């Protein structure tokens, strides 16, 4: 058994600083899925991930669909809307999730996933961090029986069906976003990524539910992407708007949607390019489509006026990212935990790449 008795609910209730409603326990189904996947480890040998710093973070690439837009459409001229920073304080919350490879077994890989939600309060930030949860994802096809069992415990999606790590991470991240949509009233939710959905890894119904719940709580959902795969003639779309110095917004929804077929990918937000501060960077921003323009601008003004500090990026989202990211030390700790709690033996296998290429074989860019 995993050490699940050490969780959760009782100590959290004692913490007065965390707003009521933010103390969500990890769903039993997720814990059960983690526990079930790790049970298959017993007696296996683990080739731990090498903790060379250059390799850290390579698992967390964003999985956005890439799209090249026609050059003429962008050059036609888009409406620029200025953002007026507002000092009004309203609840702002953000969340992020991260996954990292822990090591390889004979039958698959072990991953750790963690999610973080951050709430901005008048005098400080409050965060809740869920996880890490461990998953042993096997390479082999599983018998139909197991697939069915897992399907029941995990909202119709089993580990074997999800297959890839990004799906698991998306699931955890969407769950965290769901927590925020339920708990933040009359405020703003900042998500990492986009409001594009409709792929098997990222079902549109789930995002819709999150947006609906937030709307019912009079909360506006914004998704911010640090990078985007949207390009114009092979050049990243953000570079087309760099000249403008003041906080502003370009709505490029019409161009983006025109390039995509209506199914299966669904744009659940208006796709924009935003600059929150004069000295900041440009970001892709998705605004819940159901939010009217005035409310959206007002929300952006509040983010720009109260939450943007560093390079034009919202501080709550920055903290969420920092606190979800795994450090090398944490990966070592998880490896230690796996060895001591799952009866696996550490067995470092030599790196074929390093053996072949020596110092030139460590980069992830080496094919």
């Amino acid at each position: 058994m995993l050490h699940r008795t050490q969780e959760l609910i009782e100590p959290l209730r004692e913490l007065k600083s965390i707003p009521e409603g933010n103390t969500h326990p990890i769903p039993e189904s997720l814990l059960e899925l983690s526990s079930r996947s790790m049970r298959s480890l017993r007696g296996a040998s683990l080739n731990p991930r090498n903790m060379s710093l250059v390799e850290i973070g390579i698992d967390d690439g964003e999985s956005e669909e890439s799209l090249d837009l026609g050059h003429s459409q962008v050059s036609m001229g888009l409406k620029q809307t200025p953002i007026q920073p507002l000092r009004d304080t309203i609840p702002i919350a953000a969340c992020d999730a991260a996954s990292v490879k822990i090591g390889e077994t004979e039958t698959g890989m072990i991953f750790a996933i963690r999610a973080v939600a951050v709430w901005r309060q008048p005098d400080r930030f409050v965060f809740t961090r869920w996880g890490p949860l461990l998953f042993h994802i096997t390479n082999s096809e599983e018998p139909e029986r197991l697939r069915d069992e897992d399907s029941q415990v995990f909202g119709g999606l089993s580990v074997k069906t999800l297959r890839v790590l990004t799906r698991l991470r998306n699931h955890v991240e969407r769950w965290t976003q769901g927590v925020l949509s339920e708990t933040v009233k009359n405020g703003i939710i900042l998500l990492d990524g986009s409001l594009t959905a409709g792929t098997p890894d990222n079902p549109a119904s789930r995002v819709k539910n999150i947006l609906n719940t937030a709307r019912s709580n009079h909360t506006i959902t914004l998704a911010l992407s640090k990078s985007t795969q949207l390009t114009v003639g092979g050049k990243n779309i953000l570079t087309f708007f760099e000249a403008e110095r003041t906080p502003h917004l370009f709505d490029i929804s019409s161009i983006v949607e025109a390039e995509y077929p209506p199914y299966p990918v669904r744009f659940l937000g208006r796709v924009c390019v935003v600059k929150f501060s004069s000295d900041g960077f440009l970001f892709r921003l998705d605004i819940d489509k159901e939010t009217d323009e005035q409310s959206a601008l007002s929300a952006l003004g509040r983010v720009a006026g109260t939450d943007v500090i560093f390079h034009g990026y919202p501080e709550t989202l920055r903290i969420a990212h920092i606190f979800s990211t795994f450090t090398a030390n944490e990966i070592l700790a998880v490896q230690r935990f796996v060895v001591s709690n799952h009866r696996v033996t550490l067995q470092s296998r030599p790196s074929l790449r390093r053996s072949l290429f020596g110092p030139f074989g460590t980069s992830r860019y080496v094919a």
Partner: protein
Amino acid sequence: MRIYRKEGDEVQLIAFPDEQVHKADYFLIEDPSVSRGLLVQVIDLQYANVPGVLEDILRDVMTDGELDGKDVDPLNISSEVDALKDTRLAVCKVRGTIDQDGSLTSSTSWLPSRTTSRIRPYQVTRLITNGGHRPVKVGHADGEPVQIDATGLDGGLNIITGRKGSGKSHLAKLLLLSMAGWGAPCIVLDVNGEYVNLHKSKDGRQSNSRLTVLAVRSGLNFATAKLGLRTIAGVLSHALDLPATSSKVFTTIWRQLESRGEVSLPNLISTVQTWSCHESVRDALASRLQVLLETGLFTDETNPLTEEKILHTIENGGVLVVNLKNQNQTVRRILVEIFLGELTKILSSNWLRAAFLFAEEAHLYLRDTYWDDIVTRMRHIGLFTTFITNQPDTVQEAIYRQADNIFIFNFTNEHDIEAIGKVAKADSETIRYLVRGIPTRRCLLLGNVVHDLPMMVDVEPLDVRTMGETRLFFN
């Protein structure tokens, strides 16, 4: 604990937070496949250089002020992270090999297995501090009493050093009384008058110690003729810097008076004043003899302190304290010249097998040439010296190299640590790492008394009137 790496005579061990490791601790790395163990001593403790720990700490710092939060951590992995952050790297020096029969050899030409070796604390006291035939309890190490063998101090040169107030005089007194307790003849050159009450306990009771205290006009009284030409000429040359030409004239005068049986300080002075020689020679001799007269050391030449009397005070475990307190440097140097001359006579005549000299702050009264003399010639005739100093750079490098035992108390100054790092009994890294920051009364023992296994000891309290504490105004 796990072996991390070995390089030269240094082994690095990884120690997890729940494992007790302190500086100066000994560990045995036992390799069951070869039935022997590598004996190592921790000289420094560092944080293990765990990858990513900087990011962790930076993130923790963020939570100190404006951030407050909670981990919902069902697997309790945060405790593993904390454990990794507090994981330590114990830098150790290899001290030897413990064979299957428990004996220590200096062999270090093998490597224990990194995977199968077991690392356990090792009580090194079982190797070095059984006390031998003449145990001297010097203190405690990890709560265990530490006894050295008094014979380890025999025939050697010892140094006790440490910064002011660190406890070096305390240890010197402990060793002195212990040696005297085993019947060793001891002489103390006491610069601060802090050994004069060693025969009394703190509450005023008289102890068994046989202590004789001599001071100027209180027992320190010599007869010129009895001291002899060699000693007096030595005093004039070395303590009073008499030029060689004048020294030759003095020898001639001495021999003439000696042939008539009229050697005395007043006679020497009057003879010099009428002697036919160059005026400058006469003045040089007269002024120096006058200085001798004014020291008060030759006031009653009819009842002098002789070798026989000195021998009587120290034989069979007596302690003779030569109180140099309140004396100027010239008088101190004269007295030391006389005493070393007398001791040389006693030891050369085999009246005494050996004597132990405790010299506090010797640089204040010992001339340069005597350092070499003490560690070479006098050592061979049986005068075994213990230098006690808080200025290690005043002791010549040759003394450190030839020292048989060194007792080092706290030092923080780089220059001081560098000076004592020249000892041959331990590597400079051991001294540099272990000595810095050790508390008062804790001492690093090096040399024969610990079989060359450096050992940290909390020195035993002493129930005697030490009078060595600094005099304070606000007290």
